């Protein structure tokens, strides 16, 4: 009975606090022994409409918006089997960009002319986003995330005005232009080089 006195319960309480520590840490390390680690974005979250259903957009709608803003627009390349593209939630997209930056650091990836350049930064992000969308069970669509070529005339996001590849995405905030090398985002209507967007790839 003396064991149940409050003074004697303190060490027991401390021991109880330690149990999760003892259980959690060594198991993780042991089971992941010889593997290598890559950070990935968390579960895909779609933008929702007022009824609580995921929002979608068609390639034709995207094309129309781009034609409206760019006088140099030539082509939208997309997989004709895809009827509509699911919109990512803006918050998820921002997280995707932050995790992408971490992931590239983990993989020790740096830009290298002609080997790993702006097109790679853009298309790799695009592919990773698609896989995360599948993970959530959206197998019959693809995210409204793609990449584009712009013959930039004005500096933006710290990148010089040259032929450049960038990411674009459609969220509940509209069509956005993204610099995947530093995560900067701007609405298409405010993007200084919107008139010079030439080709857009939605696959």
């Amino acid at each position, binding site marked *: 009975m003396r064991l149940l006195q409050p003074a004697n319960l303190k060490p027991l309480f401390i021991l109880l*606090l330690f149990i999760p520590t003892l259980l959690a840490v060594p198991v993780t390390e042991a089971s992941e022994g010889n593997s290598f680690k890559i950070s990935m974005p968390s579960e895909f979250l779609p933008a929702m409409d007022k009824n609580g259903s995921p929002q979608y957009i068609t390639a034709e709608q995207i094309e129309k918006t781009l034609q409206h803003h760019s006088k140099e627009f030539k082509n939208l390349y997309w997989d004709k089997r895809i009827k509509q593209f699911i919109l990512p939630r803006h918050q998820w997209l921002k997280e995707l960009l932050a995790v992408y930056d971490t992931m590239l650091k983990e993989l020790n990836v740096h830009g290298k002319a002609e080997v790993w350049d702006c097109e790679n930064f853009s298309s790799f992000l695009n592919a990773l986003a698609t896989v995360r969308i599948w993970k959530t069970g959206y197998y019959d669509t693809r995210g409204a995330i793609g990449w584009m070529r712009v013959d930039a005339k004005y500096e933006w996001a710290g990148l010089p005005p040259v032929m450049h590849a960038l990411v674009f995405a459609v969220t509940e905030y509209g069509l956005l232009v993204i610099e995947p090398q530093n995560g900067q985002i701007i609405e298409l209507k405010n993007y200084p080089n919107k008139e010079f967007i030439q080709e857009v790839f939605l696959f």
Partner: protein
Amino acid sequence: MKYSFTIQKICISLFALIIFSGYTESNAADVLFLKKVPPSPEIIAVDGKAKLLYGNFIRKQLQKRFPTLKTIVVGDKRYMFITEKWFKDVIDWAEYFITQQVPDIGQLEDLPIAYESTLQMLMSNMANIAVAKRYNVKGSVLIGLIVAKSEKSWGAIKADGKSRQYVIGLTENGFMIYHIPTRQIIAGKDFPNKEYLQGIIF
């Protein structure tokens, strides 16, 4: 008494730290543990220099050789040749990478829509990362995507006239063509539907 109080404080702090780190990680990102590392790059060299082809040269050759090709999208200036073995290794690794994230993919009746282009983008980018880390070459790995009508049968693929997508790679044995759903691979010169190419992007 003083001693046990300090222990108690340390334990509570540790506990709080563990709970907090677990909370932030689960809300910020997932972590993927991969047991299989990306395969080491194998590029083709001639006289100690990487064997390269200009993108524009490839475009002109394709236009000349395949008049049915309506869309040719060339992304880079120069492309290197890789070994056929490494091309196959990169296919395996990219498929493994996807399966690790989406284990259910193998149970699906049909692959997800846009699977071919996503696998191709992962392959191309991972291959270029590997080359950039190991070699000092100004050129890109040519791993692209082609679309061709199935007018002639090829193994498990019927001659049904449907358009199908394939991954293409430039290797020491020329272009290799890989069909993802049936896992068939063939040299470009032997590809039965080469006369029915519709588009290529690399």
